[in-house]
């Protein structure tokens, strides 16, 4: 864990930022986006780097969580003790059903089938006319916590997101170190070996997929509350690709790399969008260069310098 000083410093900086004059609406909105996407990226990194399941549909579980908030909001259910379990549960269920099929495949087939399920979720969301269809749905208000408007408070929401991110990292790290995680990691490297000691990788991979989906659902819950708006765009395969990119940019081998990846991705994207007219023309090549020259990602860079 000694090599994880940078992500710890990042978390610390995020915690201190509102106290150091970065507590304005613009800054906290940006930081919330970073933290929530980092949370989704860490759970994806758990899948990709831990279990070897390269999902190109992870945004779908985030989207399912976000839509759970929107749909319940439309029916006047805005209490977190009901909305959050619903968001997590819906995303976990979605992951269970799609994962049960997808995990029977591997490699490129797995990527394509998760992409396909993601697009199914995307088009389903687009067709939900009662909840905004293509245009998306604006929440009446943020989710309440035992009747209080806690999440409406900028500062409180900031720390909820930070706590959720830290918890996600700790949870995924714990899982990977456990017996369960050992089977996942072994099966990623050599599934035949795992079978030859008497274990079938399938149920382990499925449980991992459901856990990652559940965390994605929690991230979706936060994302819906952060923007007070939910739309199919958040489920699109581009978003899944962005999440995967954050993982790769941060370094596939380390969970916390995804935190660095998310921070770098969102900040770069925001800065370029503010300063360069056709910023995507610059952003794209930069990402390609990063993948080409940062072997092991940003986290690999950090570890190498201190290793």
């Amino acid at each position, binding site marked *: 864990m000694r090599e994880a000083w940078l992500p710890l410093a990042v978390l610390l900086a995020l915690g201190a930022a509102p106290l150091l004059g970065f507590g304005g609406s613009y800054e906290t909105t940006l930081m919330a986006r970073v933290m929530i996407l980092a949370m989704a990226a860490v759970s994806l990194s758990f899948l990709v780097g831990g279990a070897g399941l390269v999902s190109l549909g992870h945004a779908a579980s985030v989207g399912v969580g976000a839509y759970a908030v929107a749909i319940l909001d439309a029916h006047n259910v805005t209490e977190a003790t009901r909305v959050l379990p619903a968001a997590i549960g819906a995303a976990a269920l979605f992951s269970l059903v799609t994962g049960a099929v997808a995990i029977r495949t591997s490699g490129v087939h797995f990527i394509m089938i998760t992409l396909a399920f993601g697009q199914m979720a995307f088009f389903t969301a687009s067709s939900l006319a009662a909840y905004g269809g293509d245009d998306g749905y604006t929440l009446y208000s943020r989710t309440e916590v035992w009747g209080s408007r806690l999440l409406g408070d900028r500062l409180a929401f900031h720390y909820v997101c930070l706590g959720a991110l830290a918890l996600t990292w700790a949870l995924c790290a714990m899982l990977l170190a456990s017996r*369960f995680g050992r089977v996942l990691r072994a099966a990623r490297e050599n599934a035949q070996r795992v*079978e*030859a*000691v*008497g274990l079938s990788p399938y149920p*382990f991979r499925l449980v991992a997929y459901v856990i990652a989906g559940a965390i994605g659902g929690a991230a979706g819950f936060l994302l819906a509350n952060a923007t007070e708006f939910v739309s199919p765009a958040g489920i699109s395969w581009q978003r899944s690709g962005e999440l995967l990119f954050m993982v790769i940019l941060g370094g596939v081998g380390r969970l916390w790399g995804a935190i660095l990846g998310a921070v770098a991705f969102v900040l770069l994207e925001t800065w370029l969008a503010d300063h360069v007219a056709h910023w995507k023309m610059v952003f794209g090549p930069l990402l390609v260069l990063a993948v080409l020259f940062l072997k092991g990602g940003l986290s690999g860079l950090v570890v190498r310098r201190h290793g």
Partner: protein
Amino acid sequence: MAEPLLRLVDLRKHYGGLAVTDGVSLDVLPGEIHAVIGPNGAGKTTLIHEITGVVRPDAGQVVFAGRDVTRLSLPRRVRAGLARTFQITSVVPGFTALANVALAVQARSGSSFRFLRPAASEAATNTAAMDALAEVGLADRAEVPAGALSHGEKRALELAIALATKPRLLLLDEPLAGAGPEETERLIALLTRLKSAYTILLVEHDMQAVFALADRVSVLVYGRVIATGTVADIRGNPEVRAAYLGEDEA
């Protein structure tokens, strides 16, 4: 005669018109090393796949410890006590030697669906894993990543993994394949040590090794067992000489 531990009853497998396993019947008795030899293309690999559950035979039975396992998957056969090693070494390269064996230990002791405690800190698991490593002479290499071990060490590690599953039968698929002369010598010494404690089905190309280790030998040619007997029987059998040994001399 004791009840056989593994019994193959009239196994058959066709690929198109080709009978790869053509009515193989074979018994492995408790405590013996039973070797299966045969020229290339005799169907040894398919036979192993049928015994381990990778390939399902078209007809016939695989009976292990009195139980019909013909329809069980590979992991379930392993849990029943049928451990194997691979012709091409199969370890988890990124794990240490110890973690490779610990994976096998945890697979047979308690559920692997445990999420809270770090697996690496389980003292009982590590102790059992160290014992298996010591049994194959790898105790001092426990913390080395498996990918960094030499070929012979990987072979030994694979044996340790198999032993850690507490098998009733060890199925060794060409354990000497790809080993140099020195490594071969060391592996034969290791197998000789294991011989007293385990029942082994040995599929091997190296005739010297087979004749040195085996109690009984079955000769597989074109999917059929043409002879089964002691090493002396097999050496003296004219049919075997014609089919196999003669070919070797030619």
